[in-house]
């Protein structure tokens, strides 16, 4: 009897706890618009997962979004990029000239710009920054791929600086808008790299670093006297908030809860399954399409697929990207319609060349001589139709689910896609030696030059296609030497058409990142590469 009583008491307690936990969240109604007057002061808190992406604050060494976002708040760049149009607009540089052969870039700097330690931003300071990046060599993991052929920086006069390349670099102007090329005071450039990695430098941005704990929190203070906002900024002068805090939170559902409870203002990396309760709780979702190389299967032209055009076409027809994205990633993603993401400058819609048609896929494979074996997988001359994609099963929750769906769709037409779960080192070895059939990859960049990085037959570090010399090289060269945006887009359209027609690229989806913020957060905006910009944010004092 006492046992039964104690059980009943416990059940009651648990029931109360569960009931409390199930109660609806705060009933704040969403603000109807952001036209309210900005309030000065307060602290803005933004949460995301740190491990693996917050490792340093040294701008040219960074490739991850999250770290670049922090550096963006600490530094300014020569130019900015309009997220709506892709147009490059003035920032620290007021005007610029690009030589017709895209090998020489000359910038005029604005008057009176200073770093937070008082040092002026003049041509010498810019040169010092780029000299250092050159000296870093391969350690500048973020900047180096954008500086191929870079020969050096010249101070023309106090306000004019010139960059020169040994080969055309059509991507350079857009690249300069990134936080990767955020400017640091020349006084700090000679510091020990470990110090710079800890953020121990003066930038010219709207915030200065107060404390950096890559384990848990990055604290920024408003920089008093900031007066060099980008031409895209919504206000001028100091930032509104006194403090900007980036908080480590590894659990997606907890990030969503923190936004809902008002403990923080915004969070990144919102999971699909948290979206509806965020909306229900009065938070606003910010799904942003990602420009650049969309998630796609890059065919290794050195592999057997290089000489099997019908198999490649069958792959295109066998994959239903609309179903995969809808099922796994939700409405913020779209089906793959080109090798480039739909909001990339230069994107061309190739969906007329892509249609889900398993019957056609099967017919193509039959024509190519691949006959279904006993287990449903096709064979030809004793070889099974297996597509090896390094690490396709190892990419974490949603991507893992997408891979499973992909495998099922391919199996239906008789293609085997093993869900390779090998570790990073094994994948690297396979990629370095070219021992794979296709690579699943994506890359964020608001510029079509990513296509050149992957498909140029002069093998670059991102040359996962092991492209063979051919007509594609000419198309890519045309794209990379065009400086005029319209002409560049036209050249890029030809590249994309070629890639999809010949099925060298199998688009898998049109990606998006989702952020969420609540009614205490105002003024949040994103740049052209879906990083958040915090200069204009303000907080409702509560």
């Amino acid at each position, binding site marked *: 009897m006492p*046992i039964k009583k*104690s059980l009943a008491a416990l059940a009651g307690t648990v029931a109360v706890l569960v009931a409390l*936990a199930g109660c609806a969240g705060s009933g704040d109604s969403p603000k109807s618009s952001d036209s309210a007057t900005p309030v000065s002061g307060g602290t803005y808190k933004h949460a995301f997962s740190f*491990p693996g992406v917050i*490792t340093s604050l040294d701008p040219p060494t960074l490739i991850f979004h999250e770290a670049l976002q922090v550096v963006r708040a600490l530094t300014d760049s020569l130019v900015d990029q309009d997220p709506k149009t892709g147009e490059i607009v003035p920032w620290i540089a007021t005007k610029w000239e690009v030589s017709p052969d895209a090998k020489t870039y000359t910038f005029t700097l604005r008057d009176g710009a200073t770093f937070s330690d008082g040092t002026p931003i003049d041509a010498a300071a810019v040169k010092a920054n780029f000299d250092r990046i050159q000296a870093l060599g391969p350690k500048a993991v973020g900047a180096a791929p954008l500086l191929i052929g870079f020969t050096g920086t010249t101070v023309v006069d106090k306000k004019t600086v010139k960059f020169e390349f040994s080969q055309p670099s059509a991507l350079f102007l857009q690249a300069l808008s990134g936080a990767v090329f955020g400017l640091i005071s020349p006084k700090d450039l000679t510091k020990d790299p470990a110090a710079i990695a800890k953020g121990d430098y003066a930038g010219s941005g709207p915030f200065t670093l107060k404390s950096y*704990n890559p384990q*848990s929190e990055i604290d920024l203070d408003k920089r008093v006297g900031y007066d060099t906002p980008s031409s895209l900024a919504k206000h001028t002068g100091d930032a509104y908030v006194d403090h900007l805090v980036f908080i480590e939170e590894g659990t997606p559902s907890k990030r969503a809860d923190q936004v809902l409870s008002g403990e923080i203002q915004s969070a990144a990396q919102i999971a699909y399954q948290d979206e509806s309760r965020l909306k229900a709780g009065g938070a606003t979702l910010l799904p942003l399409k990602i420009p650049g190389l969309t998630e796609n299967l890059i065919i290794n032209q050195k592999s057997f697929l290089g000489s099997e055009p019908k198999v490649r076409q069958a792959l295109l027809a066998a994959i239903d990207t609309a179903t995969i994205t809808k099922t796994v990633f939700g409405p913020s993603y779209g089906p793959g319609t080109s090798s480039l993401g739909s909001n990339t400058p230069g994107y061309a819609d190739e969906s007329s060349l892509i249609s889900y048609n398993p019957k056609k896929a099967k017919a193509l494979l039959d024509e190519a001589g691949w006959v279904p074996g006993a287990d449903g997988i096709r064979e030809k001359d004793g070889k099974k139709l297996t597509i090896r994609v390094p690490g396709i099963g190892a990419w974490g929750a949603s991507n893992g689910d997408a891979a499973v769906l992909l495998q099922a769709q391919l199996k239906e037409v008789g293609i085997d896609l093993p869900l390779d779960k090998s570790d990073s080192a094994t994948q690297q070895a396979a990629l370095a030696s070219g021992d794979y059939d296709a690579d699943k990859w994506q890359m964020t960049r608001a510029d079509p030059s990513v296509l050149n990085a992957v498909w140029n037959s002069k093998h670059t570090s991102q040359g996962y296609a092991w492209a063979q010399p051919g007509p594609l090289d000419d198309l890519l060269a045309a794209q990379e030497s065009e400086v005029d945006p319209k002409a560049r887009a036209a050249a890029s359209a030809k590249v994309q058409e070629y890639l999809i027609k010949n099925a060298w690229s199998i688009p898998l989806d049109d990606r998006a990142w989702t952020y969420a913020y609540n009614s205490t957060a105002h003024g949040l905006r994103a740049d052209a590469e879906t990083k958040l910009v915090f200069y204009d944010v303000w907080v409702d004092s509560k």
Partner: protein
Amino acid sequence: MELLRYWSARVAQSVFVLWAAFTVSFFVLYGLPSDPVTLMLSQGGTSGVLDPAAVASINHEYGFDQPLIVQYVNRLGAFVTGHFGVSIDQGQDVLTIVSRGAWSTIQIALLSFVLAIVLGLGIAVTASSTRMRWLRQLLQSLPPLALSLPTFWLGLVLIQVFAFQLHWFPSFGDKTPNTLVLPVLTLAIPVSASVAQVLTKSFLGVWRQPFVQVAQSKGFGRRQLLSKHVLRNAVIPALTMAGITLGQLLAGAVITETVFSRPGLGSMTQRAVQTQDIPVVQFMVVLAALVFVVVNLVVDALYPVIDPRIRRRGLVAA
């Protein structure tokens, strides 16, 4: 003399344990198939195929290109002289990174330990000295329930109720005192359960001892009995448990700090494992071994203080 010999032997044992922890962890970690340098440079695969020269130069910097046994000797020497290496993930000195998080963990570990003792002792004393059978049954059924709750689940429920719904406490951070409440509760509850179980059994056992009946017949009241006789005798097994309790606290700290986003040794270990940051992981293994070793030595020293019957004569039943 005998005491000296005994303690020399104990210290030598402890040093051996530390050496073993270092050696085993070294060969397990450095013999792993994955390659932290590749991991660090490839940063998840998005930067492109690695420049072999870059990989080679960093391998050389870390000494990874030398034969395993040479690396072992070098690292052992470095460890012994206090040089614990550089974190691969964060590029900073391991000691610097660890000392950043140490205080945060010590805070919750100490507070949880105290709370666990108080709760456990409270349950044990009440359960063993009460005459109400229903109360004893209830109190004895609480520890198994607490032990069967996964720590992370408990933490998440506490966060949901007390942070997100009631807004009484924050759900992350370590800067203010009120960030301590929920993590300490989460960590203390399972630990207090083990303490309660052992102590309850022990107390109940001691109450039944003949000397207690003798004392009772002499006229001692229950409270005097408790404080003068029962307590000291019953606590011995709990001292032995100190090691296990510590293990629970360390393991629990990893989970609790991760769930509550507290920057401490536990979440640091979790992140180091996740990013295959071998120097940090190895340091944490040896540190954990050191803590265990020290606690066991202290407990050993306390035994004769609490129970004069225990003498050092070769083997001690522990």
